[in-house]
């Protein structure tokens, strides 16, 4: 644990709310160790205290053949950051589904570094963001493949919906590859709610806020689809709906 406060000169903190960082500092990393061949699933939700500042930092190691399915609901308070440092051994798998719902002046971030340290490891990251007001939603995703990481298969997908002119979405994929036989794919799009789809829903009798909620929830659900347990997924979707409604 470092006591030294980061600055915005540091790439990983360039979009952060530094006043929020100062309030949340220092941060003790939470350790997750997935044993060889073990399969774990985690779902975390950031602190939603209005105006609060929280940083969660996870140091994750997935041993050979293990897998971790990790889901993040990041909807608040003032500054909310979830950072994951993941190291994958041979044949390990890391699955991330991240949802950011930002409104007002919120600054919400998901920052990942996934290191493929052994051969044949796979990772898949799906991040979906909604930002309104003058909020900032950020995803920084770094994939590192060491010399040992042959046959790596790493994918990242980021999509953001901006609900207002003043809202911002930042996505920055970064690749650092030292093996020659790897597959790394990433895609990022930023858009708005489809006006034609909204009209279609409204023309059938669905009021505007409900129509926006329905479309936004569908958009975000991509990131939750990998929650295997039905009850957990439905509970997560309900949390997303509850977080969305006051913001639309």
């Amino acid at each position: 644990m470092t006591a030294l406060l980061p600055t915005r000169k540091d790439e990983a903190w360039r979009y952060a709310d530094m006043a929020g960082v100062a309030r949340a500092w220092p941060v003790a990393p939470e350790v997750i160790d997935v044993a060889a061949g073990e399969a774990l699933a985690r779902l975390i939700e950031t602190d939603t205290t209005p105006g609060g500042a929280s940083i969660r930092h996870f140091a994750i190691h997935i041993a050979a053949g293990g897998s971790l399915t990790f889901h993040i609901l990041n909807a608040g308070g003032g500054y909310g950051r979830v950072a994951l440092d993941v190291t994958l051994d041979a044949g390990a798998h890391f699955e991330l589904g991240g949802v950011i719902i930002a409104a007002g002046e919120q600054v919400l971030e998901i920052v990942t570094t996934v290191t493929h340290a052994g051969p044949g490891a796979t990772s898949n990251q799906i991040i979906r963001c909604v930002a309104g007001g003058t909020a900032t939603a950020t995803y920084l995703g770094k994939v590192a493949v060491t010399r040992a990481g042959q046959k790596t298969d790493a994918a990242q997908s980021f999509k953001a919906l901006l609900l207002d002119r003043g809202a911002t979405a930042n996505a920055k994929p970064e690749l650092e590859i030292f093996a020659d036989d790897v597959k790394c794919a990433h895609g990022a799009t930023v858009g708005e709610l489809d006006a034609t789809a909204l009209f279609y829903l409204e023309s059938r009798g669905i009021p505007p806020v409900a129509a926006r909620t329905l479309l936004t929830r569908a958009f975000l659900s991509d990131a939750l689809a990998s929650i295997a347990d039905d009850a957990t997924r439905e509970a997560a979707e309900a949390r997303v709906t509850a977080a969305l409604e006051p913001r639309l």
Partner: protein
Amino acid sequence: MLKIDNLHAGIDGKTILNGLSLTVNAGEVHAIMGPNGAGKSTLSYVLAGRAGYAVTGGSVTFDGQDLLALAPHERAAAGVFLGLQYPVEIPGVSNLMFLRTALNAQRTLRGEKEASGAEFMKLAKAAAEDLGLPYEMLKRSVNQGFSGGEKKRNEMVQMAVLEPKLALLDETDSGLDIDALRVVSEGINRMRSPDRATLLITHYQRLLDYVVPDYVHVLVAGRIVRTGGPELAQELERDGYQSMAA
């Protein structure tokens, strides 16, 4: 039921409807025919309340109330249904969820009791069967992966479940093969009743062989230039729109 009086409307500063007047009484079926670009879809969007269309003159009353003062979802609850020329795909929202949300939103706004899950399912199943759309398809995302014909059948399934007073059907016949045209026409005819009305917007006379209208209107350059009975559709088919120029 519907009274359009000297309607002027447009989009992006361009006038498209140019003094359109039309009265539709309960129990009637009216067909509006016209060449591409005449303003047929614009009329349907203005009546349904799509954002972006500006009404610059005239009035529209529906069941005695000012239709243009209502938001789109309020118009739907009042009984207006628009079958789109190009139905929209909505990934991640199932047809059943969409339709049930719509039905119950309308009922709530009208102060009626919501449909239970069982009641809704019965309605949706019956409608899907009548229109030859496998019920299983309704579990998929709205219109996603549907063929052109399936999308139009789906519009009619929605109409059958929502039971509007006034159906505005914008080129519901285009893109349909002859079998689909027959099924969709039967769907429209089933909805005919003394307290409902239908406005069929079409480019071709073909649909009117199956759904025989009480009146046919010819729309050219944003105005109705002629009104007649079903025989007018045949005349148009023979002579084209050229002879109708205002």
